[in-house]
């Protein structure tokens, strides 16, 4: 019995070894073919350039010019714009000096401004890892932020000014995308008579638990990405990928319109926060279309 098992195991391992060997050989030969193809293509191009340099220049020059223009306009000049001293936001000397206190003061001023609004607003305090829904100075819901990530432009800004680096004004919501509907509307047609009404099941249905992710686009090029801290299903992840693609298109349109208006495109400052699913859902649904945001980074 043992011998039989051993011989079967040996056969299986031999098969695995053979399979792996064949795979490696296939990979090597495949990449060889690719290299050969590209090599021959490059050699053909070189031959063509040597044979007819003017024709080659006629093809390559406009393409290269467009690429260089795009690199300059899309990357080099905006970076120069962002990285020059005081380029993104003018920093107050006071704020740079009394870093922590000044950022606290700026945040309180933002919160007071938020309290003047008649609608619900959001305040995010990264120091305390708290996202708070509030109206008229009353904290309605305080969500603990499990994880905070900021993109490089925002991190650079934060390090540079050691404070909020934003003026004391609150941010205003401009656009929002989410994996859940803002209002979970269920359409129901009125019954024709009381008999039909009696046959309709009146038991309420709880909303199905769906993964929550939302992208809140504010003015002054600030984006808050809020997502649940619990792991997400593949479908929601695909939807998030789609939102990022849409944001890519939006950003492309933004760069193009800036260039048309002869202005340098600027960077987006992205803050990503992970909160619990319930908190994310409650916050997203409570925020009105032009909600205010008070933000404190450091």
């Amino acid at each position, binding site marked *: 019995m043992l011998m039989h098992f051993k011989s079967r195991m040996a056969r299986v391992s031999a098969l695995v070894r053979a399979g792996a060997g064949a795979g490696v050989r296939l990979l090597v030969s495949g990449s060889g073919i690719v290299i050969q193809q590209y090599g021959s293509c490059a050699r053909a191009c070189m031959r063509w350039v040597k044979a007819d340099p003017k*024709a080659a220049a*006629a*093809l390559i020059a406009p*393409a290269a*010019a*467009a*690429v260089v*223009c*795009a690199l300059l*306009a*899309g*990357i080099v000049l*905006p*970076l120069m714009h962002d990285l020059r001293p005081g380029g993104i936001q003018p920093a107050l*000397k*006071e704020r*740079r*000096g*009394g870093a922590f206190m000044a950022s*606290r*003061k700026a945040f309180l001023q933002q919160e007071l401004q938020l*309290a003047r609004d008649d*609608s*619900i607003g959001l305040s995010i305090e990264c120091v305390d890892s708290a996202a708070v*829904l509030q*109206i*008229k*100075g*009353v904290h*309605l*819901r305080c969500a603990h932020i499990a994880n905070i990530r900021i*993109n490089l*432009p925002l991190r*650079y800004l934060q*390090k*540079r*000014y050691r404070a909020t680096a934003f003026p004391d004004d609150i941010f205003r919501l401009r656009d929002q995308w989410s994996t859940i509907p803002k*209002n979970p509307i*269920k*359409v*129901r*047609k*009125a*019954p*024709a008579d*009381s*008999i*039909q*009404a009696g046959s309709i099941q009146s038991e309420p249905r*709880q909303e199905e638990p769906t993964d929550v992710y939302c992208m809140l686009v504010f003015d002054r090029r600030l984006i808050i990405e809020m997502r649940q801290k619990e792991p997400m299903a593949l479908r929601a992840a695909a939807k998030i990928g789609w939102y990022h693609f849409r944001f*890519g298109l939006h*950003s*492309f349109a933004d*760069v193009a319109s800036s260039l048309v208006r002869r202005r340098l495109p600027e*960077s987006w400052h992205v803050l990503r926060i992970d909160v619990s699913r*319930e908190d994310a*859902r*409650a916050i997203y*649904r*409570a925020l009105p279309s032009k909600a205010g945001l008070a933000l404190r980074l450091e």
Partner: protein
Amino acid sequence: MNAIPQPALPASKPRPGRGRLVLAGSAIGLVLASAILMAAPFLRDACYAVAEWGGPPMALSDFSDTALVKDATIEKQIADLQRKYSRLVPQDAYLVVSTSDNTFELRKGVIVIRKGVCSTGSYVLLTSKDSGQRWMFKTPRGMFRILEKEEDPVWHRPDWAFVEEGKPVPSPGSPERDEYGVLGAYAMSLGQGYMIHGTLYQRFLGMPVTHGCVRLGDEDLEAIFKALKIDSKVFIY
């Protein structure tokens, strides 16, 4: 001296396809440029990493002595702002309702006196077949005030209550519209037909089932009715 006859050079003709090559080059360039512009934000992000390697973005010399001296002033300003901000919280009892979780909190200042479950709007959009009218059963969000308090309230059924049951809608003011006992022992009006009241369907508490009102359990309703006065604030989110 005899000149060696040279073979006649072919007349230089404009090369066909040069214009096409320029066009093709421009088209390729446009495609590549679009791709670069599309990826520009991400590429710029990556460039910031390089900028960060160049040293700390802020030198220590930037923390000037004059700025540090100002800290005492800022502390006083912060204390003032903090005082101003904390004064915004109502010192009387007020109610906070979550339509997302279907829960409530009765608070006084920042202290939670009582909390529990409630029922809020079901987000059903009812459409009438005959008139084409639509009713959205949602609880409004924002800040409200208690406008009226009533014991043993009578429900004056609106049109949708009849449409929902497939019954003919009676004329306004008809006694058919009055229903007793369905709103529980107390009701508090928030305006525009929205109320905080009790329910016969206690088992649905904690679920979004109402037509826009806030339903509470009997004990919670009594406690809230006693705690809130006319003009007390109700926050719904």
